[in-house]
């Protein structure tokens, strides 16, 4: 059975060439079944009731945490459920950020998604911090040769994307961690674009925080994870206050629960968490060495095809080293919205726009790009359809 056939939406729409998984992936039947099973046989609130359904819901929710912990080779206490990558980064910006003082510095880069820029700007303005950005190379990579210049004794946190959501470039986290450790800084990684491509030993990366979203890795929308190194999470105050995150409340004060629940105030997205746990189990049953190899083969086909289209400029590495299947390009004289609209008539779903990375667009003097992202269910026919559609877009628009 083709991997594609495990995805009901794709199996039911054979004319669709879905190349927008970088925005939201499709969801396999195994995940849909797990969510449906919970909603139809176990639905109740968690951590509260003692009735049979409440017990089942709590077991399913905490079981999902175990599944995710296994996927990350991490301890379950280090898995904090959030609504997504954005919420996870904001959590760190508030809770870790509470421990920062005026004059402390945070380092980001010029290719970050807005969700890894704006929370730090807001924190900078709240606490009088300094916000520095590593520049971006012509190839669309974070320029790590500038680490020694940008990371200083004032640096308290380096926050970078593992894989760029525009250029597909994968950053060498080993160099970043070494640089951070040399000055005693923490490292936060936006893993939203990396996690759809297989299990990862996150503690082994040497970083302190790793944030990602379920909806880009075959799980429902509205669920994500902040992985935090145990000692970091234990030292952090809560971000949101409310139910579930407490040990004891009096009218005078509150004693907080330990992590991860300390950071999960209110009723969580239970079915989303169960869906994400199921996605991790589903992914855990696949051969990711083989899948990533195939994804990169398709990425190479796409890059080769784009190189043959007059007027196309690829924003990102042209080779396959240290990159994933996120391919952005600009077609001279054509706007990415128009290109995406023409591609749509060929059944090709791509993303057109600035991809929530306006500083990167400014760096390359572009309003936006068209982006195709390769997922395990993509095939040669998807790349072929994109290139045929692009040829028409060029004739009509450029």
């Amino acid at each position, binding site marked *: 059975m083709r991997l594609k056939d495990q995805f009901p939406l794709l199996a039911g729409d054979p004319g669709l060439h879905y190349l927008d998984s970088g925005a939201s992936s499709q969801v396999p039947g195994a995940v849909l079944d797990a969510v449906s099973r919970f909603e139809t046989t176990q639905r109740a609130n968690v951590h509260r009731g003692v009735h049979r359904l409440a017990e089942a819901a709590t077991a399913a929710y905490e079981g999902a945490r175990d599944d995710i912990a296994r996927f990350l080779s991490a301890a379950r206490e280090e898995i904090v459920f959030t609504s997504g990558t954005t919420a996870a980064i904001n959590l760190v910006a508030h809770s870790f950020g509470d421990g920062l003082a005026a004059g402390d510095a945070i380092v980001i880069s010029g290719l970050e998604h807005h969700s890894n820029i704006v929370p730090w700007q807001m924190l900078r303005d709240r606490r009088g911090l300094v916000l520095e950005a590593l520049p971006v190379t012509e190839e669309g990579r974070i320029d790590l040769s500038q680490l020694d210049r940008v990371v200083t004794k004032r640096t308290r946190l380096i926050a970078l994307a593992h894989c760029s959501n525009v250029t597909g470039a994968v950053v060498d986290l080993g160099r970043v961690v070494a640089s951070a450790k040399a000055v005693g800084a923490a490292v936060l990684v936006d893993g939203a674009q990396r996690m759809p491509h297989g299990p990862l030993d996150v503690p082994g990366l040497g970083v302190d925080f790793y944030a990602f979203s379920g909806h880009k890795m075959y799980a429902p929308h509205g669920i994500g994870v902040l992985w935090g190194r145990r000692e970091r999470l234990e030292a952090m105050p809560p971000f949101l206050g409310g139910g579930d995150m407490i040990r004891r409340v009096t009218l005078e004060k509150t004693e907080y629960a330990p992590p991860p629940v300390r950071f999960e105030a209110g009723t969580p997205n239970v079915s989303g968490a169960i869906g994400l746990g199921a996605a991790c189990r589903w992914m855990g049953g696949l051969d990711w060495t083989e899948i990533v190899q195939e994804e990169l083969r398709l990425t190479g086909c796409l890059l080769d095809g784009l190189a043959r289209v007059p007027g196309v400029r690829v924003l990102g590495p042209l080779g396959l080293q240290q990159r994933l299947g996120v391919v952005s390009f600009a077609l001279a004289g054509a*706007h*990415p*919205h*128009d290109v995406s*609209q*023409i591609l*749509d*008539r060929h059944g090709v779903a791509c993303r*057109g*726009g*600035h991809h929530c990375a*306006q500083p990167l*667009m400014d760096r390359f003097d572009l*309003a*936006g790009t068209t982006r195709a992202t390769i997922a395990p269910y993509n095939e040669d026919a998807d790349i072929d359809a994109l290139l045929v559609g692009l040829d028409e877009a060029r004739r*009509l*628009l450029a």
Partner: protein
Amino acid sequence: MSDEIYQETLLKLAKEAPGHGRLEPNAASVRLDNPLCGDRVRIDLRVRGGRIAEVAHEVRGCLLCQAAAGVIGRHAVGLDRAGVAELSGQVEKTLAGEIPAIEDLAAFRPVSGHRSRFDCVRLPFQALKEAAEIL
């Protein structure tokens, strides 16, 4: 539906872009960005007797945005504030799939099936509306 958007009339309107350029000096100049896609529009006005005497636009955007600015270049001169509001109202009717009173706007009727592109058409008219507050 997609292929209907890029009809000859719309492509021509975008290509010719009547009114393209800047007015220096001007009585009003408004720059608006579409936060979702990064498109950018600037509308410059010169006014006389409570009406638009001259209009110019600069667009960094898609064909729909360029064509919409072209409609402004053709139809905004002579309008007062009420006329600008009426023009914007015609745009909304067109996006709702109705037949507009202004023939040039008919080029945008196919966009009515593409909600995600509405703001591409609206952006220049929103900028015009803000610039016309001077009237």
